[in-house]
């Protein structure tokens, strides 16, 4: 039986103001299951609740209702967080640290031993073509280079689950291709990946399963190969499916 890595059951999230009055319901009764080895794409228009869902999976915010389990544990449990890597949408880094120090910093926060952290950092910087700039402060890096440093930081503790929020955001075509190749290599190595993206073409290339969310609800999803097989235009299969699901939801409303 394949292990469930992420499990969301009837998850709802309502943001409230200071007086606890409801401000916005970001997620409404979401059920989701990501299994080991999946490269799972969470897609949806802006404001559909993707980032809120990811934050709940990361344990940064708690759901108002429903349960979120990570490796069968509470996402805030140390044991769950030890097996997790996260790349946020924007590559915010400490500008005064060098590329090497940045990766070592996150290795330290993940509780890695110094020698192991150094070896892993060198390996990742090499793999992400950052070895030649490892002693340069990241404050002067281009967006693409900063993105690669952030990816190295997310991968440094060799996580079992990698959560990528818009991984190709701000990257040029070559950078995008490199990230896609990297995710492909990680998935081939058995890593579970959950990603969100607006680049449906990329999602179709990388992911094996997707879920379409809109207005906080899941409005579609399934195995990418099945979606492609059923599509008229194989090249833009996911785009077609995405539009169809959103239109179907509008019709229901």
């Amino acid at each position: 039986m394949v292990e469930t890595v992420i499990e969301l059951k009837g998850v709802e999230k309502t943001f409230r103001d200071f007086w606890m009055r409801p401000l916005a319901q970001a997620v409404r009764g979401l059920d989701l299951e990501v299994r080991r080895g999946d490269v799972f794409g969470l897609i949806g228009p802006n404001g559909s609740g993707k980032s809120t869902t990811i934050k709940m999976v990361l344990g940064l915010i708690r759901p108002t209702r429903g349960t979120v389990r990570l490796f069968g544990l509470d996402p805030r449990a140390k044991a769950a967080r030890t097996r997790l890597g996260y790349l946020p949408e924007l590559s915010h880094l400490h500008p005064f640290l060098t590329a090497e120090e940045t990766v070592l910093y996150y290795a330290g926060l993940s509780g890695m031993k110094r020698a192991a952290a150094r070896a892993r950092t060198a390996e990742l910087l090499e793999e992400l073509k950052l070895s030649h700039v490892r002693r340069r402060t990241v404050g002067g890096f281009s967006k693409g280079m900063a993105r690669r440093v952030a990816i190295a930081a997310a991968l440094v503790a060799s996580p079992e689950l990698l959560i990528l929020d818009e991984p190709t955001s701000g990257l040029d075509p070559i950078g995008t291709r490199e990230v896609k190749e990297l995710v492909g290599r990680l998935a081939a190595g058995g890593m579970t990946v959950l990603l969100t993206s607006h680049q449906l073409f990329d999602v179709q290339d990388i992911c094996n399963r997707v879920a379409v969310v809109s207005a906080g609800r899941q409005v579609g999803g399934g195995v990418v190969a099945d979606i492609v097989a059923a599509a008229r235009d194989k090249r833009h299969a996911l785009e077609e499916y995405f539009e169809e699901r959103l239109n179907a939801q509008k019709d229901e409303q």
Partner: protein
Amino acid sequence: MITAFLITWRSLWRGKTLWILLAAVVAAHFLLPGLVRSDGSAAGRLEMHVRVVCGTVSALMCVASLALACGSFARERDAELLPLVLVRPISAFSVAVGRWLALVVLVGVMLAVNAALVNVVPFSSGLTPPDCKVHHSPSLPPAEVAAAEAMAAFLASERTPEAVKKAPRAAVLALLTAKENERYEVVRPGKSISLPFDVPAGERLAARTRFSTMYNTRMALNGIFRYRDCEGTVSNSTQAILDTPLVPRADILSLTVAPGAGDVLRDLSLTFTNTGRSDVMLRPRRDVELLAPGDSFFANSLRATGEMMALAGLLAAFGFFLSAALSRPVALFTAVVLLSAALMAPDAVSQFPDEFQTTAGEKAGLAISRAVTRFTAALSEISPVSDLASGRAIPMRELIGAIVADMVAWPCIFLGLSAFVLRRKVR
């Protein structure tokens, strides 16, 4: 924790904060003494140097630690760096403690440089570092006890109006306690006053008399202090604080009797006999102290440094809490307002002690000031710069108390709250 410590330390190092503070500390020692005039005596010069320079450095460290702490988490939240930390298998408390430790070490380094300079710069012109003194106050019952007794008599008296008897007891007690602390006694010419002290025999003691200019109680002080077998004569009309060395009476007569020879005498009262022609007014709880020899200026400067560091550590922990809960400008503004309130509240309470004579608004202000004073009482009790400048030996138990409270207990509370709030402020 070590990782959080290192990154904060690196930001201070590479952000040039460390170097700016270091330059400020060194500049304070070499520039400030030239701007301030002392009374011209060697002791006056030293006191001015210590008071002005160490006071400036201490204030700078407190402000710097508070400001840097206020910016820490708030800036990272603004830069969306916090989620990257909070998703790691490290507790938010460890992160907060690591960062706080980095600031404490920074302050410690600066204060260590300050301690080294204060032991060198003022004495570079041949002045000998003076030993500090242990200050002993009269061993009187606590003012609250005396106030409670006075209040009991006050309530029992038939002459006390019924309306006054119905006044809030806590307020009356607070008023009487304040009065008791400021109570003074008049010593007529030719008469004496005795104050109980519990100071070991055999030490070279001095009697210190302090006169508050607020009361303008004397024109001149002439008299004889006696404690156990020692005595000293005082005749002065200008100084506000007078130290009268007490010499064994046998020494005065023959100069052959060893110190401590008077141990057989068990009179534990310091007696002052007024030999002048005018009344002398003394506040027993405020104006008279016995000074016993302490240790070196160097040792005292280290203890003062420890206390300054404890104070800065407490402020840094409080700053981290504000930073976790509020945005940077709001945290800084709140810190400044609360710090000002903490500095002004004791003055407000002492200047306006009588709450029966104030309006409702003033009563509310007084109540707030009292609450702030009570809350920050432990902080007000330590005054390392003043102690170092005046030569008062800082008791070891006072230093340990400051470290336990300001470097361990309160930081644990504030940093724990920071960790709690940090997780709830992620959006």
